[in-house]
């Protein structure tokens, strides 16, 4: 599957890249970021529909508050310089586009497909619809193998226009009873999968791992941050509008420096840093992207090494106190 990070599609990066080799076994203190990475990888935050995850973060991080854009934001210290550390929460996904008379649902993708085979990830798979009374399980229809025999078949990728969502309902009234309506968010059912040497596979695992590292690093910060103001933010709508991060720039900026932590396509074990040139000048200062490496990026088994999450957490914690 095409593996470009959603962030990278939006965030053009300068070619400067500093690779930091990381190694070593997981220590007991690392288990906190490991557990949070797995927990966050099971969460769903379709772009524009992130508030359930923001709610979870607000419960986890007592110092955090929700800002006008819906970001979860922690502000520590006062004065200059102002430094921003942020990670995007959202992921590509779908909403219910329509409800048919026979109870099947049709889908509308939120934003452009991150790769030509992105919609095909849905075909014949378990999905979750987030209705007003909670998550509702369903499946996306696929042609039965047996009935395709002897018939000509196209080898074009599965497209969103072929996606019929089956909740087991036979009428719009049954769908409504489930709390599902047009615009209910939909994603692949998530079951983070551990394999190999401390590897974790899940849709958008790297982005969630990066956010877990930022969240756990923030839990240890109040004691001694560097002089000035430190803003730690978990942002919404990194895709399409960039409303989350741009609002931060206009409400809490200008920042002397900005660090975005996100997934990147480097080899596992290689945390990397690159200059970000896409944020508007003047509000974000020296902007960089710290990447949590991933394998099979953009696929349902996007894979991260939990050791990398722990190392990213340590690196962030050092940066909060003024070290590199």
């Amino acid at each position: 599957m095409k593996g470009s990070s959603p962030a990278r599609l939006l965030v053009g990066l300068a070619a400067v890249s500093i690779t930091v080799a990381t190694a070593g076994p997981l220590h007991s203190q690392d288990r906190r970021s490991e557990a949070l990475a797995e927990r966050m990888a099971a969460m769903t935050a379709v772009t524009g529909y992130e508030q359930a995850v923001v709610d979870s973060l607000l419960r986890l991080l007592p110092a955090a508050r929700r800002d006008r854009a819906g970001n979860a934001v922690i502000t520590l210290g006062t004065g200059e310089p102002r430094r921003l550390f942020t990670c995007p929460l959202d992921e590509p996904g779908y909403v219910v586009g329509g409800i048919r008379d026979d109870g099947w649902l049709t889908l509308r993708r939120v934003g452009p497909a991150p790769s030509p085979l992105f919609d095909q990830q849905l075909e014949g798979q378990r999905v979750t619809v987030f209705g007003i009374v909670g998550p509702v399980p369903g499946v996306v229809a696929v042609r039965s193998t047996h009935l395709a025999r002897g018939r000509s078949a196209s080898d074009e990728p599965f497209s969103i226009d072929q996606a019929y969502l089956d909740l087991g309902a036979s009428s719009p009234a049954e769908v409504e009873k489930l709390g599902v309506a047009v615009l209910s968010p939909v994603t692949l059912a998530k079951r983070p999968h551990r394999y190999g040497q401390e590897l974790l596979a899940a849709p958008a695992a790297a982005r969630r791992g990066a956010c877990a590292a930022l969240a756990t690093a923030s839990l240890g910060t109040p004691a001694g941050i560097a002089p000035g103001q430190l803003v730690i933010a978990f942002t919404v709508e990194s895709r399409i509008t960039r409303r989350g991060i741009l609002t931060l720039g206009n409400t809490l900026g200008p920042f002397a420096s900005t660090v975005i932590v996100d997934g990147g396509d480097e080899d596992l074990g290689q945390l990397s840093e690159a200059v970000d040139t896409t944020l508007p000048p003047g509000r974000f200062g020296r902007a960089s992207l710290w990447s949590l490496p991933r394998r099979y990026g953009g696929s349902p088994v996007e894979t991260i090494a939990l050791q990398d999450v722990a190392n990213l957490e340590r690196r962030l914690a050092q940066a909060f106190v003024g070290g590199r």
Partner: protein
Amino acid sequence: MSARRVALALLVLLALEGQGGRGAEGQQVSPGAASAASSVLQRVPEAEAILGPLVESYGVSGMEAPVRETVMRFLPGWAKPETDSAGNLWVRVGEGAPTVVFIAHLDEIGFRITAVGEDGLASLEQEGGFYSSLFEGRPALVHTGSRSVPAVFAPRAPDAEPRHTPPALRLDLGAGSRAAVEALGVRVGNTVTMPKNYQRLAGARATGRSFDDRVGCTALLLALRRLDPKRVHHQVIFVWSVREEIGLEGAEVVAQELGLTVARVHAIDTFVSSDSPLELKTFAFAPLGQGPVARALDNSAITPPTLVDTLRLVTRPRFIPLQIGATNGGNDGSVFAPWGAPDAAVGWPLRYSHSPAEVSDLRDVVSLGDLVQAVAEGW
């Protein structure tokens, strides 16, 4: 049932037609049928209690032992199960002619490891027919015989051509080398599946991978658990077969063993239904929730029309709904043909066959169990 009795019964049946239907749309439902439908709904939890564990047992063709063990767990106390040299599980009820065989298969589609590269990635071959795209980029489990080792089906390279069909799938165990894979206990020949679980959907619907043919296995168990062996006045053999998906191999062993002694065989297997917006409705249209389906014609067998009629006669007095249709696929009963035994295959409507998202209606599962019991006791 003799031909004369069948003819007589058909006349009665025809006279009864129009005096209350099977509950199909627009038809009046008799009090008996309404009561039967209510009873079916009440027994859905019993069916789920068997189907759930069966669906969550792994058994790619040739490695069915975990599924066979789950079946044995649900057999009634009086049953005396036997496992033959091929791995088929048999339970015999009653004595004397005619000998009737019910057969449902234990195995499921999946993969087998054919080689492990120096880089630790394993090559795979498919066991059974399905779209490999449904497994690309998904979690995986390798079944070593003693444990399940987690892995992933590697997605194609980002620069690969974006076609529906992926290149040959490879398995990544996260090990990095052949030696590390071997250290995990993984070997060439091990079978590979996706993790799966049983999931209830809205209404009486449910989803899970390998409903084909764990629903058939469940129906046989439901029938046996309700069956009074004393009411069976001839030999009925219940078989849970192996290696159906790769060529009806287990059933072949059963057919050879029984030879000319079999009067009739009932394969209890999926009726692949076109009840989906993606399918042509030119045939195979059997809506979910409207009862089992006489699988009267498929790619391997033709049920003699008189047997289809008799099936209707047997089910009607017990208000068991029955649909009749033609679909695609082969069934275990077809391998009894060389011995002259007719195959009156029966299934239940299934959507999205051989995918991780197979969907059935649990009322059909209960009714299928009732149908097997009715045929064993009354035909």
